[in-house]
């Protein structure tokens, strides 16, 4: 047995992969020997005719995370994901799921494992064209011999979850690509697996639909908290979805990390190339570039405190909050000086033409606001508490890949 909770890890490791290798061909052992001797993939193919799909890969996937595997075509990512449910039988190595090495499963154990632990969503959907949407979604349950009423109930629920209510009796080929993949997703969800394997599920969809599906997957995941292994060749998708991203090249994993880490500290040139053409506006979120709001004025403070605060920080406006740090408005230096003369209270000179945003928003969506606004953008949480502010320059520097711009506005 393997120790699931390693010291220092807050999250449980759901899947642990150790030294996994997959060779395609009739004499895989020879290929493995040659690999150990340090032969290159190409040389092995030329000399022995064996193709190395996955080359000695080790990593772990945490429970409840979206683990994205990215790579160019031929990098072995699809081969790797097919090892998790043994659609590809690994040539050597171990895959531990919930403390059991699944590689050695016999037929009946494997079937049970596939029925209960994992479900897969395919790039080409893999829907059964002779069954209705409902029939497709019911499939996994039917295989498990769940009673008719029960599986109908579960399937209808899954269909509703993916937004296909009312389409139950349609045939898959009557639906658009996006809707077909929703069926694929519903089929997987109906099985209520711990682990979702998604093999380039959105690659066949057009960009608009793809983005929509990505967001919906994130929504679903926030509710369901599955362990998801997600394959893609689209770096934007990887960084948008992934809690952690593994980059594959030539059958090996060349870097694993959170999207930001990979983006900012590419471990080698290959990854640098890979992330070069990434659209950072879709990766970098408000929380990545916001600054601490050092200068804040409480509502009960007077106008003078506000003036002093601005003078100290060298700024021309300051946000006003209540005692719970909830945003109330903004005051400018000019208004404050005038109010001081007129004896007005802070409350009377509050302005409201600022923008707020939540911390998860991508800077892509902040660019327009940044251009329009006179004041820094306020990052708030759901209770309207101020978490930080974003100044225009930090959006621009965020685009260039430098974290936490230091310049301040005004």
């Amino acid at each position, binding site marked *: 047995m393997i120790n699931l909770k390693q010291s220092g890890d807050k999250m449980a490791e759901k899947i642990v992969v150790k030294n996994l290798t997959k060779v395609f061909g009739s004499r895989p052992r020879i290929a493995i020997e040659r690999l150990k001797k340090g032969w290159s993939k190409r040389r092995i193919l030329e000399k022995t005719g064996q193709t190395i799909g996955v080359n000695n890969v080790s990593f772990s996937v945490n429970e409840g995370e979206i683990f994205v595997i990215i790579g160019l075509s031929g990098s072995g990512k699809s081969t790797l994901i097919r090892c998790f449910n043994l659609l590809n039988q690994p040539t050597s190595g171990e895959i531990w799921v919930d403390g059991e090495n699944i590689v050695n499963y016999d037929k009946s154990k494997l*079937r049970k494992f*596939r*029925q209960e632990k994992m479900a897969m969503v395919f790039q080409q959907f893999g829907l059964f*064209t002779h069954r209705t949407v409902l029939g497709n979604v019911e499939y*996994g349950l039917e*295989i498990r011999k769940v009673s008719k009423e029960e599986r109908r109930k579960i399937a209808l629920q899954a269909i509703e979850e993916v937004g296909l209510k009312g389409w139950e009796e349609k045939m898959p080929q009557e639906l658009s690509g996006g809707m077909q993949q929703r069926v694929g997703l519903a089929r997987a969800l109906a099985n209520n697996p711990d682990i979702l394997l998604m093999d380039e599920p959105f690659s066949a969809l057009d960009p608009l639909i793809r983005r929509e599906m990505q967001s919906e997957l994130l929504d679903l995941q926030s509710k369901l908290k599955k362990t998801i292994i997600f394959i893609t060749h689209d770096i934007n998708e990887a960084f948008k979805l992934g809690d952690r991203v593994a980059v594959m090249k030539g059958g090996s994993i060349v870097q694993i990390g959170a999207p930001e880490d990979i983006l900012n500290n590419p471990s080698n040139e290959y990854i640098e190339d890979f992330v070069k053409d990434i659209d950072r506006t879709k990766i970098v979120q408000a929380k990545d570039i916001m600054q601490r709001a050092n200068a804040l004025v409480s509502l009960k403070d007077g106008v003078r405190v506000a003036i002093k605060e601005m003078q100290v920080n060298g700024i021309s406006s300051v946000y006003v909050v209540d005692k719970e740090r909830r945003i109330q408005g903004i005051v400018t230096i000019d208004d404050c000086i005038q109010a001081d003369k007129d004896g007005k209270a802070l409350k009377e000179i509050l302005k409201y033409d600022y923008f707020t945003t939540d911390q998860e928003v991508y800077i892509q969506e902040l660019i327009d606001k940044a251009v329009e606004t006179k004041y820094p953008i306020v990052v708030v949480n759901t209770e309207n508490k101020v978490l930080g502010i974003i100044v225009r320059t930090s959006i621009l520097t965020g685009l260039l890949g430098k974290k936490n711009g230091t310049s301040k506005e005004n």
Partner: protein
Amino acid sequence: MLANFAGVVEANNKLVEADQKPTLVFADAGWDSIRIHNQIAAVIIEKGYGYQTDVLTGSSPIVIKGLRQGDIDICMEAWTDNIIDVYQPGIENGEIVELSINYDDNAQGLYVPTYVLKGDEKRGIEPLAPGLKSIKDLPQYWQVFKDPDNPAQGRIYGSPPSWSADEILRTKMETYQLEETYDYFNPGSDTALNTSLVSAYEKGEPWVGYYWDPTWITGKYDLTLLADEPYNQEKWDAGYACEFPGVKVTVAVNGKMVEKAPEVVAFLKNYQTSTKINSELLAFMQDHGADIDKTVTWFFSDYEDLWTSWIPQEVAAVIRENINPDQTPVKADFTKFPATLSFSLGIYVEKVISWLTENFQSVFDWLKFGVNGIVSSIKKILAFIPWFILIAFIFLLGWKVDQWKSGLLYALMAFFIGALGLWDEMILTLSIALTGVMISIIFGIPLGIYMAYSKKMETVMKPLLDGAQTMPSFVYLIPAMIFFGLGTVPAVFATIIYSMPPCIRLTNVGIRGVPIAMKEAAYSYGSSAWQVLTKVELPQAMPTIMAGINQTTMAAMSMVVISSMIGAKGLGENVLIAINRTDIAMGFDAGISIVFLAIIIDRITQRISERQKND
């Protein structure tokens, strides 16, 4: 150089000669003695008179038709009584000229293998009908000759249809009241009759039926002609209550021969043999690998007195010179495949088949019993349904799978078949075809699935299937006949072999065509192989499999019709009789009925398969 030049001149001379003298065409009506006579006459005509000769093959009435129309010039054996309907009018209007009587001391009637009467100690056969002497004893022994299609009666193998013996025997059955205990079985053709006799003989089984002498069979096998009243005209006219008179077997030629080849006509006028000579020739031939050339060479050396008496001295001298192999130097002719290299593959197949029949007879009997049961129950069900209900059913089926107009059309077609008086025949054809299709599907689909799963199996099966479908369908009749005799069961058997390949093939194609992504998806949800097959692959492949079943059905229909040659009853039998009688009206009625039946079945199964596809 000079020699070559001479050769060219010689060849040119031959060409000129060939131009001047027409090619004379012999009738080959299918049995061995006529072939031997053809060959003998051909040698004399070619070597002695310098004509080219050729042969046209057909059933007896057809070659006589050909003789009358001038497609055929010479018929060496016209069994006049058997073909009287076509022959006599030809004589009367001068289309045919009868030149001589080849022989008339022949015999025909009902034969049984002698071991049935006396047993055969060497082969361990008990005499099954020791008291059977004459036709009149037959009712006592009907159980010995049980009809496999109808075990409540005996079976008498009848004459090939359209031979006059056919009509005579049917009447004789009534006259002697044999029909109470025996079924008069139409063997479909003389070849089928031969096969049934030979295979029964080889197995040592009882057999009673029409046969005639001389043939190689009567030469080779020990058969006994059942006694009958001695021939006299009075009894003959009163329901053929006596033995057959000897049939006049004549040499007949087309009327124009007299001008076209007068010297040949003169020669043929002298052509005469006897039953004895014929039997000797046939036995010789049978003993020498059925080689006609050898037999004829033997004839020319051993019967010199006979053949020289037919022709003038000088012609005989020329022939003698030409046929002596020592005097003709053998030139290497590379345009001809060397005869010494030839061998027959069929011999081995024959050996395997006879080994099978010897060792697995009980299996075949068991199969026979089973298949017979299926056919007769389908037949009973179909025959039990009143005709109008069956037509209504066809209408509804057509409506359901297509539209009411189609249903109406199919119903009208079925009605039309009934109106032609062929309803019962249609039911028979249908029940044999349905049995064949059912069994084909039961075996074909699993085989197709196996083929789709196993690369090896596909490699083995593909050429077999190609071969099975390209092989002329007639060929299947032979093993079917040998294993199962004549009648319904071999027809079903032949139908199965012929109609199963499309079912296997398209099941294979259908299953292989299921997208891998779909199968992977099914497996990824933990399906067992059986679940993948039944829940994904078969439903996915169903449109293709249905197309295969449609093809299978059509193949079965066509084979059932052909199977009439080995005694399958139904629409095909009518076609066959019509061919033999060259009866246009009868042939057309039966033919159009087959077409209509085929259209009904084809359209309905096709629509079903299309609907599968669209769903």
